[in-house]
C-alpha cells in the first residue's frame, strides 16, 4: 500500500478521533464530584477524616450501583491548610475539571474563598462543617450545626442541672463572639443571669487569673466556647485547681476535634456538650457506619463531628441527584428544596428549603471516661439563627453572609 499525504492525514485523524472516543464516553457515564479539603498542614486533624468520610460515602454509592446508573468519579485536591490554594483549586474544579458538585472547605475563610467561584460558574456547592451561621446563597447547601441549634439545646439543659448564674468564656474571633451572644440570649430566656463574658485570643494559654476571677464571681455554671490547643490549657488548669469538682461546665466546642480523648477522664468528666454526632450514639445507623469505617480504615477512633457532616453532605447530594434523575444544577437544587431528608449516622438530616441549612438532631452529651455519653436527643432542630435573616424562597438571588443581630 502506498502512503500519500492525504491517506496519512485521514488515517491519523481517524486514529486521533478513535483515541478520544473512550474518554468522551466515560465522561458521559460518570458523575464528577469535586472535593477541596486541607488534608495536610495545621488543619489536617479536621480535613483527613473528612476526606476519608467523603470517599467512604462515594464507595458505598458506587457499590450500590451508582447514581442513576452512573458511577461517581472523585476529583480531590489537598489545599494544604493554605487559604490561597482554595481559590486556585476552586477554579480548577469548576473550569478545567468541570465537576457536577463540589464538597469541601473547612474554615469559614476557606468557604468564603470558593463560594463566589462556585456561584459564578453555577457549580453546586456543599459546605459540611459546623460554623457561625448566616450564609444566604441559593447555590450553597450547608449541613453543619449553627450556634443557635447547639446553644438552644445545651443552655436550658445545663442551667437546669447547675443553676442560674452563668459565666461565659469564649474565643476572641467571630465564632466565639457570635456564640457568646447566643449563649447570653438563651441564658436570659431561661430566667438566668450572665455574670460575666470573657474573650481570649487564640494563643492565650495561662488561665490562672481567670480561674481566680471566676471564683470571685461565684457562678453556678461555666459555659466555655474556647478553641484550639492553647485554650485546651484552660480545662487542664481548671481541673488542676480542683474546680472541676465544684462548678459544673458546659462547652460548645470541646469534643469536635476529639478533645475528650486528650483530657484525662478526671479532667474531663462531667463537662456537658451538644452536637449532631457522638461516636457513642448507640443507633443501628451509627453502629453500621462505624463498622464500615473500621473495615475501610482499620479503626473508627478518628471519626468526628465534621467527618460525619461531610459524609451526610455527600449522601444528601446523592439522594437529590437520584430524585432529580439528573446532575443538572437547577434540577438538583429543586430536589433538595423539596424538603429532602436522609438517614445519616447522626440521625435524620433534612434540608431546610428557606435557608439551605440543615434541620438535624442535636444530642446532649456528657464527658464520661473519655467518651461522650449521650444523655438526651432533641429531634429535628431548626437552624433558627439563619432562618431569622435568610429566606431564599422569597429572595432567591440573595448572596451574602448575614451578621445575626438581636
Amino acid at each position, binding site marked *: 500500500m502506498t502512503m500519500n499525504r492525504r491517506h496519512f492525514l485521514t488515517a491519523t485523524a481517524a486514529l486521533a478521533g478513535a483515541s478520544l472516543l473512550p474518554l468522551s464516553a466515560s465522561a458521559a457515564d460518570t458523575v464528577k464530584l469535586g472535593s477541596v479539603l486541607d488534608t495536610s*498542614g*495545621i488543619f*489536617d*486533624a479536621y480535613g483527613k477524616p473528612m476526606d476519608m468520610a467523603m470517599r467512604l460515602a462515594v464507595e458505598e454509592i458506587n457499590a450500590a450501583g451508582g447514581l442513576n446508573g452512573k458511577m461517581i468519579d472523585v476529583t480531590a485536591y489537598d489545599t494544604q491548610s493554605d487559604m490561597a490554594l482554595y481559590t486556585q483549586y476552586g477554579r480548577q474544579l469548576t473550569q478545567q475539571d468541570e465537576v457536577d458538585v463540589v464538597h469541601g472547605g473547612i474554615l469559614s475563610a476557606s468557604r468564603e474563598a470558593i463560594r463566589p467561584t462556585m456561584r459564578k460558574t453555577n457549580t453546586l456547592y456543599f459546605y459540611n462543617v459546623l460554623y457561625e451561621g448566616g450564609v444566604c446563597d441559593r447555590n450553597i447547601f450547608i449541613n453543619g450545626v449553627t450556634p443557635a441549634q447547639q446553644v438552644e439545646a445545651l443552655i436550658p439543659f445545663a442551667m437546669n442541672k447547675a443553676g442560674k448564674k452563668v459565666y461565659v468564656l469564649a474565643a*476572641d474571633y467571630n465564632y466565639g463572639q457570635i456564640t457568646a451572644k447566643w449563649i447570653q440570649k438563651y441564658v436570659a430566656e431561661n430566667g438566668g443571669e450572665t455574670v460575666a463574658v*470573657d*474573650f*481570649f*485570643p487564640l*494563643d*492565650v*494559654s*495561662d*488561665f*490562672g*487569673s*481567670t*480561674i*481566680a*476571677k471566676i*471564683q*470571685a464571681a461565684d457562678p453556678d455554671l461555666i459555659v466555655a466556647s474556647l478553641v*484550639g*490547643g*492553647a*485554650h*485546651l*490549657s484552660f480545662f*487542664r*488548669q481548671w*481541673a*488542676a*485547681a*480542683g*474546680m472541676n469538682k*465544684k462548678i459544673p461546665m458546659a462547652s460548645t466546642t470541646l469534643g469536635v*476535634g*476529639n*478533645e475528650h480523648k*486528650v*483530657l*484525662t477522664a*478526671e*479532667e474531663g468528666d462531667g463537662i456537658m456538650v451538644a452536637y449532631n454526632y457522638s461516636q457513642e450514639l448507640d443507633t443501628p445507623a451509627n453502629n453500621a457506619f462505624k463498622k464500615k469505617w473500621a473495615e475501610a480504615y482499620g479503626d473508627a477512633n478518628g471519626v468526628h463531628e465534621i467527618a460525619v457532616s461531610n459524609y451526610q453532605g455527600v449522601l444528601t447530594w446523592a439522594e437529590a441527584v437520584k430524585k432529580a434523575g439528573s446532575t443538572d444544577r437547577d434540577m438538583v437544587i429543586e430536589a433538595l428544596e423539596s424538603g429532602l431528608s436522609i438517614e445519616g449516622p447522626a440521625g435524620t438530616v433534612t434540608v431546610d428549603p428557606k435557608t439551605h441549612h440543615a434541620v438535624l438532631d442535636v444530642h446532649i452529651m456528657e464527658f464520661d471516661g473519655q467518651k461522650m455519653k449521650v444523655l438526651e436527643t432533641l429531634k429535628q432542630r431548626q437552624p433558627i439563627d439563619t432562618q431569622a435573616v435568610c429566606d431564599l424562597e422569597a429572595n432567591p438571588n440573595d448572596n451574602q453572609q448575614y451578621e445575626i443581630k438581636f
Partner: protein
Amino acid sequence: MDLAAVIVVETVYAVASLILISAGLAIVFGMMKVINLAHGEFMMMGGYATITAVNLGINIYIAMLVIAPIVVGLIGLLVERLVIRHLYGRLVDTMLATWGLSLFFVGIVTMIFGNTTTGISTPIPGISIGDYQINGYNFFIVIISILLVLLIYFVLKGTRLGLIARGTMQRSDMAAALGYSPDRIYMATFFVGSALSGLAGAVLAPLVGLVPSSGGAYIAKAFITVISGGPSVIAGLISSGGFFGVVNQFFTFAISPVVGEVALLVSAVILLRLLPQGVTGRFLKGKL
C-alpha cells in the same frame, strides 16, 4: 483577703514562669549572642519528650526534670555542631538559620506525633486558700524557678567551669591563649541553654494543651524578657521577669487577660525606649 492572697500567688507564679521560659534563652542569647529563634521549639520538644516518657510509664518528675532536659540538650548539641558553630558572630545569619530550624522542628514533630493536641494532667492536686481553690502546681513552678536561678548563679559564680565560660564569652581569644578551647566551651554552653529550654517546656507541659506549633506562644515573651533584662544574665532575668510579671498580672486582674498581655508589650516598648541597653545596662551594672 483571700482574693488578695490568690492574686499574690498568681503574680509570683507569673514572674516565675517568665523566668523559667527565658532562662535557656538568657544563656544562649545573653551569654553567646546567638539569637535562637528556635527557642520556643526547644521548649515544645521538652514538652513532647515529657509526655512521651510519661506515656511509657516513667515517673513524671523524672521525665520532666531529667529526661526532657537531656533529650533537648542533645538535640541542641547536634544543632550547635551542625549549624550554629559555623555562624558565631554572624547575628543575622544565625537568626535565619534558627528560624529555618524552628520550621523544621515543627514539621518533624508534626510528622511523628501528628497535628493534634496532646498533654498530661498535673501531678499535684488543687489547694484551697480560704474560699478559693488554686492550682497547686503553681507552687511547684515557683520552686523550680527559684532553684534554677540559684543553680545558674552558683555555677557561673562559684565554679571554675562557670568562670571559664564567662571568661570565654567576654574574650574568647584570651581564653584560647590561656589554653581553653572556645569551640568546646561554646558547645557546652549551648548544650546547657538548650537543656534549660527543654526543662522549661517540660515543667509547663502539664498546664497546657501541647501542639507542634506551641513554641510560638513562648518565643516573644522570652525574647522580651531577655532583651529588657540587659547584659547581666541573672540580675537581668529577675528584674525584667519581675517587672513584666507584675505588670501583666496587675492588668489581668484589674481588667482582662487580653489587656494584661497588651500591658506587658506596651511596658516593654516604654522600658526599652528609656533603657535601650536593658535594665541591667543602667542599674546593677557588672552584676552577674
